[in-house]
């Protein structure tokens, strides 16, 4: 008797599924403007499974771009396969709309809820669709994590490093003038030793400061290097944005945790996110400082009237090695 009951129950369930699929499948709350197309898309399909697949499919449809043709969404009679296709499409759409580095694994809380509003909130939070709590999302223009005014050429972020070697007649006076130089350009002295200075000067004033420094004496050497860190800067920005989002979601989950165990798990994940976020923010601060303030290394030495007078950009300094001092013996 029991053996006969099981197949009957299965058949009954199957029949109910078909009935539901064949009937008015349009959900109570159809979130698409062309809700008919949704129902038409699902109606007439041969579903082998229960509501689960159907409701999920509709829900995910809501999150997909509106202009996606139905034919692309429903390409298989197998619910499992169709579920996989929808998931792939959902992920592709998420990648287009949301920031990168969103968590790949769905959280445990991402379950179908009978209450559509809760589901929408959870789903939206997980997929990274419309932002919440003011967190930057896909829809907002990406903003830098740290305010800075260092974008120069076409939004590129360049780190400038320069060095100068200057021969002066009065070293003490030249050092005093060199120490005062960065202050005039809203910079500061980083390292100071006799004849050696490292100053940080706003990038926009670097060349002007170097030209002014060249007037202190004779320039033996003048070098400047530029390093484009735009890729790293943008990458860190994106990662901070994604982690901030995840942090917000985790905080929300933490507030909704029902058991201590759940809260602990969420807390652990949150701590990890916080640590990563702090590391990234620190690196961002460092980069921003390097971009905003260029580093100028100054070496000065005292020379007399008979010392060699090399030119600063002469490509052939061979004559510096010639002369009485390097030839005769004393």
């Amino acid at each position, binding site marked *: 008797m029991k053996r006969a009951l099981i197949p009957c129950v299965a058949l009954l369930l199957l029949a109910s599924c078909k009935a539901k699929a064949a009937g008015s499948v349009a959900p109570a709350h159809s979130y698409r403007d062309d809700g008919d197309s949704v129902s038409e898309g699902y109606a007439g399909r041969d579903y082998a499974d229960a509501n689960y697949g159907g409701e999920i499919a509709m829900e995910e449809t809501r999150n997909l771009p509106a202009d996606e043709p139905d034919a692309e969404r429903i390409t298989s009679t197998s619910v499992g396969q169709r579920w996989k296709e929808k998931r792939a499409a959902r992920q592709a759409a998420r990648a287009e709309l949301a920031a990168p580095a969103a968590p790949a694994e769905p959280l445990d809380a991402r379950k179908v809820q009978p209450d559509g509003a809760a589901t929408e909130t959870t789903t939206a939070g997980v997929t990274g669709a419309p932002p919440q709590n003011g967190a930057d999302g896909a829809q907002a223009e990406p903003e830098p994590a740290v305010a800075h005014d260092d974008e120069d050429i076409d939004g590129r972020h360049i780190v400038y490093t320069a060095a100068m070697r200057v021969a002066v007649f009065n070293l003490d006076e030249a050092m005093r003038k060199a120490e005062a130089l960065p202050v005039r350009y809203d910079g500061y002295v980083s390292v100071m030793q006799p004849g050696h200075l490292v100053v940080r000067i706003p990038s926009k004033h670097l060349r002007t400061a170097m030209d002014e420094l060249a007037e202190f004496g004779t320039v033996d050497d003048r070098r400047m290097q530029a390093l484009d860190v735009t890729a790293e800067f943008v990458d860190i920005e994106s990662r901070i944005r994604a982690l901030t989002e995840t942090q917000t979601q985790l905080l929300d989950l933490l507030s909704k945790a029902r058991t201590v165990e759940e809260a602990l798990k969420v807390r652990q994940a949150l701590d990890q996110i916080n640590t990563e976020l702090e590391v990234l923010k620190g690196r961002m601060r460092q980069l921003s400082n390097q971009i905003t303030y260029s580093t100028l290394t100054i070496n000065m030495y005292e020379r007399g*009237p008979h010392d060699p007078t090399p030119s600063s950009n002469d490509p052939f300094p061979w004559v510096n090695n010639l002369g009485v001092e390097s030839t005769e013996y004393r």
Partner: protein
Amino acid sequence: MQRIRPILIWCAVAMATGCNAYRLDPPKGFAQVSEDDRGARMKAGDDVGLRVDVFDNVEGGTLAFWGEDLVRKLAQRDYTLVSHRPIKSDNRKPGAQFNFSYVNPDGKEKFFSVALFVTDKYRITLQVAGDQKLAGKYQPRLPEIASETKIRGCKLLTDICDGEQPQIAPGQPKKPEKATKEPDTELADDTTSEEDPQATELADKASSEPAG
């Protein structure tokens, strides 16, 4: 075998002398202090130094170009050009000799002469310097020392090794404002004979009356 023998001997000599840019044995009166393929230093008994330096040449670098560059840059360092003349090396490569006078920071007068040879690959300088009172003894010897020097680095089908002499304007080059001493007027008068190499040679011979 007899035909090959000279070739073999030549190869052996070449290998023995190496592929250096120059070849110079210590001239009479000089002892070798150091030597490598980029130069040599020699010393005379009266502290006069003889120095050989080798620099790589670049495309377009000629005797005229480097000679003018040398004179201009030494002038910036308060070296006063007294005279210059053409010279030749042991293997008949043309060069130029420049004679300078100089006052060092201690106020002592020095003489400084440099012979410059330019080939396709190298710039080779022979410098001799010491007290001004020894100028008459050593400055006229520089052409002789140059004629004992083998210069290498010439290529076929180029005229770098046969380049024209530098055209240095008569008179002293313009000195920087912070020069502390005016050049000797007698030396300044000597520059009027720069255009005439023979006159320069005669003047050098006259000034090189043996003192010892």
